[in-house]
């Protein structure tokens, strides 16, 4: 029995009928076509599916789509206008904060939450702040530097 869910994602309002058991990450990817949000595990360890819901970061594999009724959602696709980059995206690019790129959208979304709560985090605070997001390529050092870069350059470069 499908149920209706109405929500706003990256500023656009959607209304869809979904099976109650549909995971929110599948809804984003398969129903809305927002494939920038990735799936890296099935036990909520990896954080590749991290998005922002009502101002809080969320692993979108841990929620059902129907729980998102009325939610205000931001995914990686909504971080900057086409042709522009968010300071965190700039940071990842400048500091070689990614290799295969698979964890990157989730990592960027988590970093956004981290910097919103703590605009000038120490290295240890950054490492702690992204503990819920796994990266297998970078050994994390350049991700830490990317977030430091974003903290040091909060305004988008002209």
């Amino acid at each position, binding site marked *: 029995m499908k149920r209706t869910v109405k929500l706003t994602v990256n500023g656009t309002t959607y209304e869809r009928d979904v*099976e109650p*058991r*549909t995971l929110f990450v*599948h809804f984003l*990817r*398969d129903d809305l*076509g*927002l*494939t*920038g*949000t*990735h*799936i*890296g*595990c*099935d*036990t909520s*360890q*990896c954080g*590749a599916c991290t998005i922002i819901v009502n101002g809080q970061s969320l692993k979108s594999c841990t929620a059902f789509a129907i729980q998102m009724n009325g939610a205000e959602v931001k*995914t*990686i*696709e909504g*971080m*900057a206008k086409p042709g522009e*980059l968010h300071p965190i*995206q700039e940071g*990842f*690019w*400048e500091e*070689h904060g*990614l*290799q*295969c*790129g*698979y*964890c*990157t*959208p989730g990592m*960027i979304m988590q970093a956004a939450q981290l910097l919103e709560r703590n605009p000038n985090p120490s*290295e240890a605070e*950054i*490492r*702690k702040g*992204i*503990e*819920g*997001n*796994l*990266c*297998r*390529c*970078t*050994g*994390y*050092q*350049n*991700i*830490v530097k990317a977030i430091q870069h974003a903290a040091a350059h909060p305004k988008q470069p002209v």
Partner: protein
Amino acid sequence: MATMSAIGERIKRREDPRLITGHATYTDDMQPTGMTYLHLVRSPYAHANIKSINSEAAAKMPGVLAIITGEELKAHAAPLVNVAVGHEIPAHYSLAVDRVRHVGEAVAAVIADSRYTARDAAEAIEVDYEVLPVITEAIQAYKDGAVQLHEGFKNNLAAELHFGNDNAAAFQNPEVLVEQRFVNQRLAPNPMETRSLIAEWQIGEDALTLTTSTQIPHILRTLLCLVMSIPEHKIRVIAPEVGGGFGCKLNIYAEEVIAVYASKKLGRPVNWVETRSESLRSTIHGRDMIFDARLAATKDGVITGLDIVGYCNMGAYLQLLSTAIPVLAGLIVSGAYAIPLVHFKGLCIYTNTTPTDAYRGAGRPEATYMIERIVTMLAEKLGVDPMEIRRKNFVQPDAFPYANNLGLAYDSGDYEVTMNKAMELFGYDEMRKTQAEALAQGRYIGIGQSTYVEVCGLGPGSGMPTGRGYDCAVIRTEVTGKVTVFTGVSPHGQGQETSFAQVVAANFGIPIEDVIVKHGDTNNTPYGMGTYGSRGTAVGSGALMLAVDSIKEKAKKIAAFQLEASEDDIVFEDGVFSVKGAGGGKTLTWQQMCYVAYVDPKMAPVIEPGLEATRYFEPGNFVYPFGTHLCAVEIDAESGDITILKYIAVDDCGNQINPLLVEGQVHGGLAQGISQALYEEVVYDENGQLISGSLMDYTVPTASELPFYTLDHTTTPSPVNPLGVKGIGEAGTIASTPCVVNAVQDALKTFGVGEINMPLRSEKIWKAMQSKNGH
């Protein structure tokens, strides 16, 4: 904005904009019309006969399109392929026939019209098993009377390898003898993107497109042709954006065969995405080698002999390169040291576990762990500094190319220079003082080292177990002066879209923006071997440079015609062709060159149109990156917790095209090697059940568990390829594991705890410290 680039410049990656904005396209991001979804029923038992499969209920579920078992598939697909040379291999069917031999082996396939339905139906399939006795450990499986996995393979022996010379003399009354068993535990590669694929059979064309998260699109295409009897020219394999590989996507897998068959059967696209828990059971594992090592030396610390007997756990079947991994270990067990008498015997053994194959380093971490540990143990035994014992035994700079008595010839190196640089950067003597002071206060600091050399850049034209080793590049200039490069390597994070563009742009004197690098699609890239074994740049850039030369050669002919000069007098500098000594005379820009090459009718009778080159590069040898890593750890005596205080890596990968990318590779390599030392472990229980079956139980380390790395380098160009580069993808992993373990053992020296098997989790350390009760 035009960026004039040079080789050796830190240029940020051109791959990144699509990846950081969420617009990259990985396999599962595609949704062709009419998509169907595959889910597999997998064996819950490590060893069992399949008595019956009942899929009646599942077949009736709405949305279920097909259910396929091993019996059906067997008639349409040959067993999976292994590169084994000189030994028989048991049949490895994509879907089990009659018997399963490891937990997670696929026994039936469901294809349905949604991901969720496919799973529901898979759960409704009933398989009746007759459970058989189980063996999971290689040494046990090799014993007489052990449970036998495959008929005709006595003692579960898949292959027996021998490298080296007769080393018996070294062990007759050696002045000093060090003996130790070294265990490289089993690891799971865990790229963040699990395996995923979409198989699309094109009705009417009898052709296949397989989009799959692979490191080897061209090789996979050939293998699929062999297994599925589909003509090779009717197969297109696409490796789109690939979310990491680390060796585990260097294979042909059962699911690829099953999905291709299903797509052909249904005439619809078939999607399969591995869950992480599935991945931990059904994607290859790495390591799981036990080395019984003996090292003979003089009282002065000169190593005279080395002997290794290796028990190499293959798992239940041989995947593509399973037996090649111990080969890579065996060839380099003597490491950076000149050891006259050395022998490696490798026993490749079947057990009821997931097959092992290439995982970052693939054999070299196992060899390096052993040699770097045992050399440090020798130093301890002799009461000398571990760095000094290395200095004494290093292959000397004038010995290159150095034949290592195991079948390899090291290309180039100066190990001591690199070691000295690392020791200076680390503050070695200072740290020894700090260590002594700390100990006086009851704090346990240890210093570890690894002065590794590894063998990579697979591979030379001869000397590969798999056939010829080469790669290919096509450089196509466009009419307007832009350049498209097609490479046979298949990067998935390594950054060759940037570094290869850098090389081409620098050679043609054009902005890097004018060059684009294409890879990963067998329809438009030349036949190449893909990306693994730290070969992408080491071999791929060779092909690129040959193609650059061919382009320049033809361009000179064109310039000679256009500038009315002799070819020998044509100079090509900074993107401009001119005539030697004719200052202020006629010139031709790169853009003009490309234009006339394709358009100028005056050249019609004289020069063939176009400006494009296809070149293969087949190196004469492997490359041998090396370096010294040093680390300091502190152990908390209360908890056994290990903190890495400092980690220094000084690596030599020859010339660097883009140091930013080199550093990224080293960082990632270090993380995986350190993690083997401290955290990671695939665990089976005595029934062959996978205890570490999800990321809740298998540790992929987080940012908090890894240290800050300080890097530096020396530069010893390789003579093996045009750019003098050596691979750097695996060096960090290979070097760092023994470095960390040596440090921990050094910290525990006063406890005399003996060898502790990895991973060095705090409870193991704490227990060891308790049992010896301090100094």
